[in-house]
Structures are given as structure tokens and as C-alpha cells.
């Protein structure tokens, strides 16, 4: 028997609701994918429940397990397609190969906090963002689309990036998607629903990884849109535009099922525990070490996923700042011009053009 240590309230509610709809009876799913320390159980056409070793952190759509040293999902005989029985107390294979005890698991809330004890001032916020960027550049894994962060002159300026351009190499993925991400950021700053929706079709599902890099970046972007929206007490319209495209118009269908789940949660303000904790630290902590620790924990999400997410988070911070400035200075009237685009992002690029 394997014990679960924690479970997001999202997963807990999902299981409870499905069991209730099923008249209180057990529900059935099947194993969608298996890795050494994680597996995904598909419980409906669109819903996955993840099982993950607690060492890898808590996700809004996952149950964390206390795997003994040396134990892996594969050693528990989990196999793709294997049928499983789920109820409020356990998840077990139909054939009895494994039994996961859900009783006693801590339930944690992946969503946004309703209130904060103390938020930092804007200078501290800027200092926290610089700390996040510095740690990310030193410790991140830039083999996904992360290198695009050093491809945007205003970002380099905003975050005072000096020596990293040479050490972070642009790759096929980053150079290909970079112009589209720029256009998305611009669309968000400009509050241009039509262009956001259009650009997103060229972003979702792009890049390496089971959660493609571009999707990770969108999650990071959504984290700052939600958290800095709370910080500035601003309604960020882009969130509803993103929701409309990703969920209502079904754009998440063009990516992997695991990523779909992640984006769905992020739209609702639900993030992996390490991303949530970093986001809170970003707006509420004055402790540089605490920020650094939170960044390192977030970087450890997946292979490049953590880095791609943090790149999205920092780009989001830049976007929010610009929206804020635009609002404060009533800046909007000139934003739509080509000239302003060039000023903001350095250059215009045809998103379909091949970049060497």
C-alpha cells in the first residue's frame, strides 16, 4: 500500500463530485501515461488525475505519493491502459497490482489566496523580480523556449540583464516562437482581444516536453496576471480573453492532455504549489533568500518546464507593469501604432518567417 501525502482541493473535489454523480459508487479510469515517478489517470475525456512522488512537488491536478526509496510507478506495475478504481478513500488497479491510500492526505489549496497579511511596496516588488530573474539566469535550464527572454530588448533593459546573452543560446524552439510570444504580450498590453485569440493558435502546444514549453510559458504568464492583478487590485481583462480562447474555443485541444489540464487550472488561478509559493513570495516577501529558494524550487519542475514557466512569469510581470503605466498615464491612445510596437519590442517580426 502506498500512502498519499497531499492532494489539491481541486482533485479532492473532482473525485468527490464524480463519485456523487455516480450515485456514491466507485468510478473507473485508466492509466494514461506512466513515468518513473509520476503517472496520469484519465477519468473522463478531458480530465486527468496525476499521481506524483512527493519529491516533485504538488500540482493542482495531482495527488502526491509517499514512495519508498527506490520505488517507482513502473515497479508498482503501473502500465498504460491499466484500469483503475477510484473513490474518496483509495485508488487501486482493477487487477490489484497497486493500492493507493488517499485517507490522511493533506488537502492544499492551489488557488489564489483571498487575502494577504502584508504586501511589499513597489520598490521591493521590483527588487524581488530582479532576484527572480537573476536566479533564473544563473540556475535555469534554457533548452526549451526560455532563451527568448534575452531576445527582447525592453526585457533586457527592464530586468537589467547584462552578461547572460552570450551564455544562453537561442535554439530552434525559442527563435521560432519568440515573435509570436512578443505579439501576444503586445496584444495583452494593448488589450486587443482579437489579436490575442489569433496569436494563441500559433502558440499553444509548441515546444519540447510532455507539457510543451510554450504552454509552460503561458502558465507562468497567467500566474503573474493573476497575482500581480491582485497586487495592483486591477482587473486583468486578458485573463478572460485567454480563457475564452483556451477553454471556451477549445484551443487546449491542440496540445497534450497533460498540458490541457495544466492550462485549465492556470486559467482559474490554480498553480503548482512551487509556482504559487513563488508568486506569493514575489508580492509579499522581503527576504531575498526566501525568493531565491522559491525560484530554485520552481525551476525544478520538470526538465525545462520550470524555467519556461518562470520566463512566462517574468514576461507577465513586464506586461502588467506596462498595463499599469498605461492606465496611470492614460497611455492607451498611442499603443496601437506600429511605431509604438517597435519602441516596445525592438522590432517587428513575421511570425511565420523562418529564423536562423
Amino acid at each position, binding site marked *: 500500500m502506498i500512502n498519499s501525502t497531499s492532494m489539491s482541493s481541486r482533485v479532492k473535489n473532482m473525485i468527490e463530485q464524480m463519485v456523487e454523480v455516480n450515485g456514491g459508487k466507485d468510478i473507473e479510469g485508466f492509466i494514461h501515461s506512466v513515468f518513473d515517478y509520476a503517472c496520469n489517470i484519465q477519468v473522463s475525456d478531458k480530465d486527468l488525475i496525476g499521481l506524483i512522488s512527493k519529491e516533485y512537488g504538488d500540482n493542482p491536478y495531482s495527488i502526491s505519493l509517499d514512495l519508498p526509496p527506490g520505488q517507482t510507478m513502473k515497479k508498482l506495475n503501473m502500465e498504460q491502459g491499466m484500469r483503475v478504481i477510484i473513490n474518496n478513500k483509495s485508488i487501486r488497479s482493477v487487477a490489484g497490482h497497486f493500492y493507493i491510500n488517499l485517507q490522511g492526505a493533506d488537502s492544499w489549496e492551489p488557488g489564489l489566496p483571498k487575502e494577504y497579511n502584508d504586501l511589499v511596496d513597489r520598490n521591493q516588488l521590483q527588487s524581488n523580480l530582479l532576484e527572480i530573474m537573476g536566479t533564473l539566469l544563473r540556475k535555469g535550464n534554457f533548452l*526549451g523556449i526560455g532563451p527568448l527572454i534575452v531576445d527582447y530588448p525592453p526585457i533586457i533593459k527592464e530586468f537589467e540583464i547584462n552578461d547572460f546573452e552570450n551564455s544562453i543560446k537561442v535554439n530552434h524552439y525559442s527563435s521560432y516562437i519568440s515573435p509570436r510570444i512578443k505579439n501576444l504580450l503586445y496584444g495583452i498590453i494593448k488589450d486587443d482581444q482579437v489579436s490575442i485569440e489569433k496569436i494563441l493558435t500559433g502558440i499553444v502546444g*509548441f515546444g519540447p516536453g510532455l507539457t510543451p514549453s510554450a504552454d509552460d510559458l503561458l502558465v507562468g504568464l497567467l500566474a503573474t496576471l493573476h497575482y500581480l492583478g491582485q497586487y495592483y487590485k486591477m482587473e486583468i481583462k486578458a485573463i478572460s480573453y485567454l480563457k475564452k480562447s483556451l477553454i471556451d474555443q477549445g484551443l487546449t485541444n491542440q496540445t497534450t492532455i497533460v498540458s490541457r489540464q495544466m492550462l485549465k487550472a492556470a486559467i482559474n488561478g490554480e498553480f503548482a504549489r512551487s509556482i504559487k509559493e513563488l508568486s506569493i513570495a514575489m508580492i509579499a516577501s522581503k527576504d531575498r533568500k526566501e525568493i531565491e529558494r522559491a525560484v530554485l524550487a520552481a525551476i525544478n519542475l520538470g526538465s525545462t518546464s520550470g524555467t519556461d514557466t518562470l520566463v512566462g512569469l517574468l514576461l507577465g510581470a513586464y506586461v502588467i507593469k506596462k498595463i499599469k503605466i498605461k492606465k496611470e498615464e492614460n497611455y492607451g491612445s498611442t499603443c496601437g501604432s506600429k511605431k509604438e510596437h517597435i519602441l516596445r519590442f525592438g522590432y517587428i517580426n513575421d511570425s511565420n518567417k523562418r529564423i536562423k
Partner: protein
Amino acid sequence: MIVTKELNSISGVKEVLVGMGTDLNKELTGNLNLMTPEIEELTPNDFYIAVDTEKEEMVFEEVVSKVDELLSKKAESQTSDYQPATFDSAVDALPDANMVVISVPGEYAADEAKKALNKGIHVMLFSDNVPIEKEIELKKLAHEKGLLVMGPDCGTAIINGVPLCFANAVNKGDIGIVGASGTGIQEVSSIIGKLGSGITQAIGTGGRDLRAEVGGIMMIDGIRALQKDPNTEVIVLISKPPAKEIEEKVLNTLKESDKPAVVHFIGGDPEVAKAYGAYAGLTLEDTAYKAVALSRGEEVVDVVDFTRDKEELEKAAKEEATKFSQGQKYLRGLYSGGTLAYEALQILQEKGIDGYSNIPLKSEFKLEDVFKSKAHTVLDLGEDEFTVGKPHPMIDPSTRIDVILKEAKDPEVAVILLDFVIGYGANRDIVGEILPGIIKAREYAEKEGRHLTFVAFVCGTNEDPQNLEKCEVTLKENGVYVLPSNAQAVRFSEKLISSIK
């Protein structure tokens, strides 16, 4: 990411793309002129690697071999053996193999076994949960083809001197075994080995083979194989009592040759085997002793007592019993081997003790809650209720340690009886891993003013990787009474209990 990095480092590689088959990744692939019809067909949940190379043939081969190496790296880090992912790749890797061990979830196992039989390969089916109709189909097919299907749920076999799954290193000799019980085969073959004799083959049949529906197909084919084997002089059968009509078929088959046979239908009537001219094994140990006697042409006698130091053991039991406190009176047998637990219940019953169990001899002694022992209790910790989500207790001792500690807290418990099954497939240091639990349990009891006696036996041989003698010495040095067989360990435990005043 590692794949991208490693492939990029191969000379002649121009472009590498690794990703899921989303439309946008396919778009990038096309943009880099790497699109193929296969990639076009991918869905977002498919993984692919696209590589563009200079001198196509040579570099591509290097890339493919590098990808193979990288993708199998994790499996290799767990074991140095090559682990083919499919039956076909296993056959490709070892084209001369004539036996396959199948251990995949039950619902898929029969299909894999069928593939093997159709290629003329004998099957050992370790998997359980194979539907009985599939078992019948497979065994009929194997019978037609003159092949063996050992299993399903067969955990023990020794073929041509090679221990398969859970089995012991037993010297070659002239005794052939066919058994429907894994630990039964282990105990009998190990004792044969300890007595200085050896075996030809130990063929497992799977526990359901002697059920009426299956008809003992493999037991009968196994007997015939041993009858034809020129190296086999004595045949041993081990099983729980079969269905009546099957019993008759099996025992009649033994009469087809002159080779003497020892039959141990565990818990069955010994007179039945005798009626068919076979010798009846009274316990697993007695079965082994009788087979060895037949092999050596010695007189066949019943071995149903201590085989050495009888007086000392009886004296020790009496002395030990004086150490128990008021109220300590019960035995708890905590077994990793199912047949061994069953045999313990049998021997206790013969001595007038009915043991509660999760595998009781009488339904009224079935434990309502297997986690709450009652009076004298013998547990098979290899049963599903204890192993869900965990490896078998012969591999993972954690459940047994938990139960030992739990029993130590029961003020009515006096004796804890343990089996230690060593050999291939078993934990590499089962004694070393359980010992801290024994010591802790004893300390706990002592703090409470009680004395706890541990009795054990080790099923295995000195040729096993864990070494029988080393295991026995370690246990003895730590105050555990070690007997040479399950039967004797149960008898000694019973002596302890009956000596309590």
C-alpha cells in the same frame, strides 16, 4: 532535453527536434524541412524525434543507436541486464531461447504466452489474474505442441539446474519434482539439497492446475516428462488435495512407469497415494526425506519428529516456557510462504491446536479482520490483503516487521514463528532486514515485563546467494531458535506453547 543535447553532439547531425506531436511542433518540423508522412500522422500525445543529417546513412545509424542507448538508459541503471520491451524484441535478442518467463498483468499475459507457444517456446507464467478459460486454452495448446505452461501464478521452477523466479540453488541429482505450490517446491528441493542429494527438474504447474476445470494437464504432462527423462529416478508430486477425478488421473499417470514416486497432497489423506503404489509424504520435510531415501536405495521411513537434538530441544522448550509472564500463551506464525503457513496450520491441528488464519483449515477459524490476530494465529502475509501496492514479503519485509511489532504489543503472545525464504528472487538480506524488527519487538516486550520467544527456520541452501548457514547463524546469535525445517519449527513452537503452565 538530454536526447536533443546528445544527438546534437554527433558529428554530421544538422538539426534535432524532440517533442510531442502537436500541430505547432509539426509546423516547426516542416519549417526545418524534417517533415515525414509518419510525423504528419502524429497526435498531440505522441512523442517523436526528428533529425536532419549530412551523410544520411552512416550518421542516421549512429543517431538511432544513440537514441536507443539514451531511451534504455534508465532501465539499464536499474539492472545491468538488457530488458527487452516486448516479447518479439526478447525473441530477437535471444533467438535460441526455448523458455520464456512471462510477468505482465494478467489480462495481457495469455496473449504473450500464446505467442511463445506458437513459436515452440516453453512458458513459465509468473503472472496471476489470468482467466481460467485462458489457462485451459494455453495448456491445451501446450499439450498439443509438447510444451510446458508452468502457471499462471507459478513462482517457482528449477529447469536444467537454473532457478527461475523464486527458487533455490539445488545441486543436480536424480529426483524430479512437479508441484502446484511454489514454497512447497522450495522447501522440498532445499531439504533434498541440504541432505546432500539433488534434483533433475522442478516443474511448477500453477495452483489451479489440479482443479476439475483445468484437469491437471500440466501436472500429468510434467509427470510424463520426468518419466521419460533418463536422469530422473524418483518423482515427487506436491499439491493441495486435487479434485477427486483429477487425483485419480494424476495418480494413475504415476503408474505408467516403474519410477518410484512420493506424493504429498498437503492436508490430504496419505492413504490415497499409497493405494496407487506411491509413497505418501506426510509433510514437506518428510516428502524430501522419503525422496532422498528412494534415490539412495535406503529404507523409506516416516520423518515426523525432530531430526536432531530432540532431547535438548524438548528441554529448551520447557526452560523457555518458564520465562513467559502470566497471560502469555499464544503462538503467532507470520509467514511469507503460503504453503508453509498452510502446513503450519496442518501440523498444529494434528497436535490439537486450531489456528486462526487468513487461510484457515476450517471456515470458523477465518479471521474477521486479518490485521487483528486471535488466540493462536498463523498468517500468510503473501496474500493479497497484505501485499496490495507492495512487493511480496519474500522481497519486501516491511509488512512483516509491522506485524511482528504489532504482535509484540499483545500481552497474550508468547511465541512468534517466522519463515525465512532465501534463494533467487528473494530479498538479498531478508534476515538482516527483519532482525531489527525482532530485536525491537523483544525490547518492547521486555519493557512491559514480558518475554517473547522467536522461532524460525530458513528455507534455502548454502549455494543460495544469501547462504543458508550464514542466515541461520545470524538468527541464532540474536537469540532466535532456528530449526532445520518448517515442520520442525512448528513442532518446537507447539512444544513451547504446550509447556506453558
